[in-house]
């Protein structure tokens, strides 16, 4: 929401933070995105899979907002990043490729965007999609996504 109209290709981190600060006092446009949180994404969380909470299910297709941590991005600029509940500090394998926690939210941004450094808390706004989907470009499989999204440093 906050950065959606900004010229992303020239935005740098300092500017991002400045805009983020502006965002706090900027007037709200149209409908406020509905807040959702990592703690209430699922109504059951078991060995054999998850069930999304009723609230998340009812918000499918609508604008939502969620706070989390940006996982280390694959490229400095991307349309795509992974949002995690906690900062990804310890690599689970230590000697090989990192693995993702299971309760991630995948973010597809409206446009290619310079990403902030890994481990920063961000607030993301976008349209909520749930259900299994495979990204054509990266092959990444996700169950819950925010699309046409934008973020600010929280």
């Amino acid at each position, binding site marked *: 929401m906050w950065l959606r109209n900004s010229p992303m290709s020239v935005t740098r981190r300092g500017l991002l933070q400045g805009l983020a600060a502006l965002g706090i006092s900027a007037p709200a446009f149209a409908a406020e995105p509905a807040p959702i949180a990592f703690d209430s994404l699922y109504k059951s969380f078991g060995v054999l899979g998850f069930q999304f909470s009723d609230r998340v299910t009812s918000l499918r297709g609508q604008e939502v907002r969620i706070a989390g941590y940006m996982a280390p991005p694959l490229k400095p600029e991307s349309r795509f990043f992974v949002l995690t509940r906690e900062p990804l500090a*310890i690599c689970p394998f230590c000697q090989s490729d990192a693995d993702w926690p299971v309760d991630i939210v995948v973010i597809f941004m409206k446009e290619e965007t310079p990403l902030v450094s890994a481990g920063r808390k961000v607030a993301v706004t976008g349209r909520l999609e749930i259900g299994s989907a495979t990204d054509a470009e990266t092959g990444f499989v996700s169950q819950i996504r925010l699309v046409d999204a934008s973020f600010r440093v929280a």
Partner: protein
Amino acid sequence: MQKRTWLMAAAMLASVAPATAQTIYPLNRAEILEGSRFDFKVEFPNAPASADVKVTINGKPIAEAFGREVQFVQNEEGQKHSALWLRGAQLPAGQYVVEAAQGGEKATVNWNVYATGERKAKNVILFIGDGMSVAHRTAARILSKGWEQGLYGGELAIDDMPNMALISTSGTDSIVTDSANSASAYTTGHKSCVNALGIYCAKNALTLDHPKVETISEVIKRKRSGMAIGVVTNSEIEDATPASMVAHTRRRSDFNDIVKMFFDVQPDVIMGGGSPNFLPKSTPGTKRTDDQDFIAKFKEAGYALATTKTEMNAAVAGGSKKLLGLYNTSNIDGAFDLRLAKKGSISKFPDQPDVVEQTKAALEMLKGAQDGFFLMVESARIDKYSHSLDWERAVFDTIMLDNAVKAAKDFAGERNDTLIIVVADHAHPVSLIGSYNDDRPGQLLRDKLGVYQDSVVPNYGPRDADGYPTDVNTSHRLAVVFGTYPDTCDTGRPYMDGERVPAVAGAEKNTYVANEKDCTAPMAVRKQGNLPFESNSGVHAADDVVLTAMGPGAEKFRGHKPNTYVFRVMTEALSLGGK
């Protein structure tokens, strides 16, 4: 003199690794179980044609020696080498000299293919304390047995065994190993390289194409229809050590492929964490990228499914002989969180079995197998908690391993038909150097450290029935240090709020900085890391590890041995050699 030594060293180096030599797999000095399957491969630099190379075994042409046709691939995968392949080769016992000639250059390797003689053991139980080092053991002895006037209050089950050896753990590529190729050495008898399982690390581009070697599970499944196999861990079941029982991949993180490999080999009892890689991609919470439902496949193959301790015990009580037990989406929580701190994922998964309960359940299911069983049990988080420099959690899981070994010894009793081996797969640089005493004068953590005559017995809470202290956050505590660390803050206290996170991602990509949450603790000491900047946790050490053993075949363990020797002793005890 000095010059001559240097010249000799240079000559040796040249003969070991000339940049453009032919490479023969299995590598030089391989010890191969008679009749076990392995992929024979020779790589020739500069992509010669078939007519320009010649390969012999004991002087005979290669196809004649193996009794099978070989395949020659010029410019393999478009790379600048040619390859000669024979997948699934087998050899009778003997000494073999393999020569690969290309123009005037000749490469030579020697293999020893060994026979295994009479069967000595009906059952083999291999316990792996992942990363378990001598200090873990000493601290576990103090915590669980007590210490008075220089003597311990009792012996650990892992110590109280008749045979012992020092085991070296290096892989083919580096002095310091990881858990993939070190576990693979135990389960295949072949050395491999970092991140690899059940293969030799060749030039192949795809992780599943490298030359394979047979795992002990595959040998047993091929030769002994009446023998059962168990794989038990508290890590994700796809993690390196349990995966080494079934897997062939250059990349240990191929979890989805590894689940399929478990299904292909079908060990009778499979227990651990890591359920998401079993679920089809349509299921929320999955990590698969295809539609295969391995929960359903295992059920169809006759496995009972358990997702909690209650379900595990019910399966055992119901007489199940085949069980898939998946108790966590990630690693099963360690003993420190299961018993004391109740952090980690205890709130999400309140009914997880520990390694001891899993071991007892596995033994109940396997012990009826008509031709005996092979069981691998791993206490995985000794390593994981040592990476995070959280020694109390690592030592609680060492005590847990000890209790699991006690259960196995109770099973073996006077039967004299069960070989029990307890070993680590690699070490961590960890030492017990004294004790912290909050009553000592001074304001700094180092003022509170007692060394030599001031290293006093800790005043931990009373031990429970299973030998775990009921409180470790006391005023007199052991001081255990790690030799490697990223930028971090030491608190000198146990981490009651959850596993220690020594460092967090820094502003620069691939750098890590101290976790400031720990730096604000009373008396916290800020330490500048001694590891490369991209390291976020402690690393493994090349130090030898201790192996103890009992039962038929255990007498083979003495002195110092390479890790591959463990496979040899197990296969000799079970007489797995031959066609």
